[in-house]
């Protein structure tokens, strides 16, 4: 890059010379790094509080010089009577979402491309992105408005037809389904965008020649469309597995969880919040949080390995 600052620079190290020559660019980046230092690096180093006894009255330094207790808080978490339930909920909700919502987004994208009639197609497409931009608060409000067993619109409608609606929002048995469906409703159209783009990149002559050879619609979908977007599917699958434990689960659980369905709605993140910010057991909560991060990390690495081994695609 040529810059119009012909200072006499001398024989400084090339890095120093670059910093001196284009100091403003480096400064811009340093601002970003300073931000990351405060809001990412410091909290990451603060994770050592999971191995120390941190008390709020010791102040921030307590994170770094509290008494070292090793894995005490991890053992406590692992032997807590809630642990199995928390782990089961966290894993089940995530896996169910991946199992149902991931293939359904692909199906929806294929449906849109196969749809006759351009106008309606555009309308459906545009409308299907919209819920992505609506907050989970609103979504929870909509769910209550429709499903509430006292006054929900659907409950009323079914009652007038003589059908009793189950108490979906209250009974724990329905929570997994509720979490999976509400996320499907919110994100299906949005998740389909990337597949739509991948499908639109397929060479149309492939379809034409397949048609001449007598391949029907279903044949063309399975033999052309799906194999052509295999790479996209693989990448999104790895990302999906990596993001298994995060995503909207926390927010959903805070909004849709209540004292009656808590046996199914409470996930590790909610527990971390309750133990840490509400009950003030900071070190213990940090240990529980770290435990969850470790599982996520393990999942990303194994998904990536699996994909590199069997699908010839990997992120890193």
């Amino acid at each position, binding site marked *: 890059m040529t810059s119009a600052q012909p200072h006499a620079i001398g024989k400084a190290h090339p890095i120093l010379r670059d910093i001196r020559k284009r100091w403003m660019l480096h400064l811009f980046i340093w*601002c970003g790094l300073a931000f990351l230092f405060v809001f*990412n690096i410091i909290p990451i180093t*603060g994770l050592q509080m999971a191995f120390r006894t941190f008390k709020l009255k010791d102040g*921030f330094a307590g994170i770094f010089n509290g008494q070292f207790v090793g894995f005490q808080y991890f053992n406590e978490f692992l032997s807590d009577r809630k642990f199995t339930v928390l782990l089961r909920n966290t894993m089940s909700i995530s896996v169910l979402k991946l199992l149902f919502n991931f293939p359904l987004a692909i199906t929806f994208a294929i449906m849109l491309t196969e749809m006759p009639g351009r106008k309606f197609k555009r309308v459906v497409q545009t409308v299907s992105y919209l819920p992505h931009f609506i907050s989970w*608060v609103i979504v929870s409000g909509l769910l209550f408005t429709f499903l509430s067993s006292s006054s929900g619109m659907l409950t009323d409608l079914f009652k*007038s037809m003589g059908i009793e609606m189950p108490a979906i929002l209250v009974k724990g048995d329905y929570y997994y389904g509720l979490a999976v469906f509400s996320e499907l409703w919110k994100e299906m159209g949005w998740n389909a965008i990337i597949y739509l783009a991948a*499908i639109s990149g397929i060479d149309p002559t492939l379809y034409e020649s397949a048609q001449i050879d007598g391949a029907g619609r279903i044949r063309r979908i399975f033999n052309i469309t799906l194999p052509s977007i295999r790479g996209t599917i693989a990448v999104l699958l790895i990302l999906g597995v990596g993001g298994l434990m995060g995503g909207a689960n926390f*927010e959903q659980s*805070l909004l849709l969880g209540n004292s009656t369905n808590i046996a199914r709605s409470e996930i590790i993140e909610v527990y971390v919040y309750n133990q840490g910010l509400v009950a003030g057991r900071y070190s213990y909560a940090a240990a529980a949080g770290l435990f969850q991060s470790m599982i996520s990390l393990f999942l990303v690495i194994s998904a990536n390995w699996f994909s590199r081994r069997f699908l010839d695609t990997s992120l890193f």
Partner: protein
Amino acid sequence: MIGIPRQKNAIRHTPEDRIINTMIIILTTFVFIVTVYPFYYVLIMSFNNGNDAMRGGIYLWPRVFTMENYGQFLNDSKWISAIFVSFARTVLGTGLGVLFTCMVAYAMSFEDLKLRKFYYGIMIICMYFSGGLIPYYLTLRQIGLLNNFLVYIIPMMFSIYYMILAISFFQAIPRTLYESAYLDGANDAYIYVKIVLPLSLPLLATLALFMAVNQWNSWMDTAFYCTGQKNLRTLAYLLRDLIVSNETGVQRGWQAISDVAAGKMKAVTSKSIQMAAMMISILPIICVYPFLQKYFVSGIMLGAVKG
């Protein structure tokens, strides 16, 4: 808009085609209705008398039309203050967030910058790893951001994901534009503001949409970091409070809010106010959505290709 492979040559429809087309139309119509109707229902309920709504049976049209839900809502200083806070954080947070993130992205878009790989490495690590809620909370506490309006703005200023998106956009800008500006004696700040930003409107629109929606919808930061300050409550937070209290106090939700001054039949219930509040918080998103739609689809693509 995404192009879709045309099948103009498919003139003859086989029975298979017809079955599939019918099925697709039925399914997509179902998706369409399931997506749109809930919003429509909230809209009509927000214009319906709250006591009347309690009887149920309203599906397509308000039965007893009233504006009082909105009237009551907009008369409540609590809600007005929440709207103001939400609006302020959205405008400030989005503006600063876009400018700051793009500033770093501009510098990072120079492939030949020394140490760039090093900088990039740190950023990627920070993208994948975080300390989690508890250390983050204690950090915010230490730097005095708890119960502070700035907690809505400063921690949201920089997003590595959006920075990567912006880098790939900036790298498509011809370098010769910068070179002639350098020759005219311009510095990088000038080039960023006067050349790069004006050339990147689609990118800015995309990032602004994402950040603004995120700011407007956010309630967890209020719940976690601003518990002690009632005047920092946002619209989304208050709405969540109302929804939860309407749901847990099931009967209470439909009970008329006491209207002491007038002895007349009250038109407003806590539930019908919730409908109005939901409409008001959806409204800004629906308003900007059609204008920005064409940008974000291409923005997402850009991220997907590079990403």
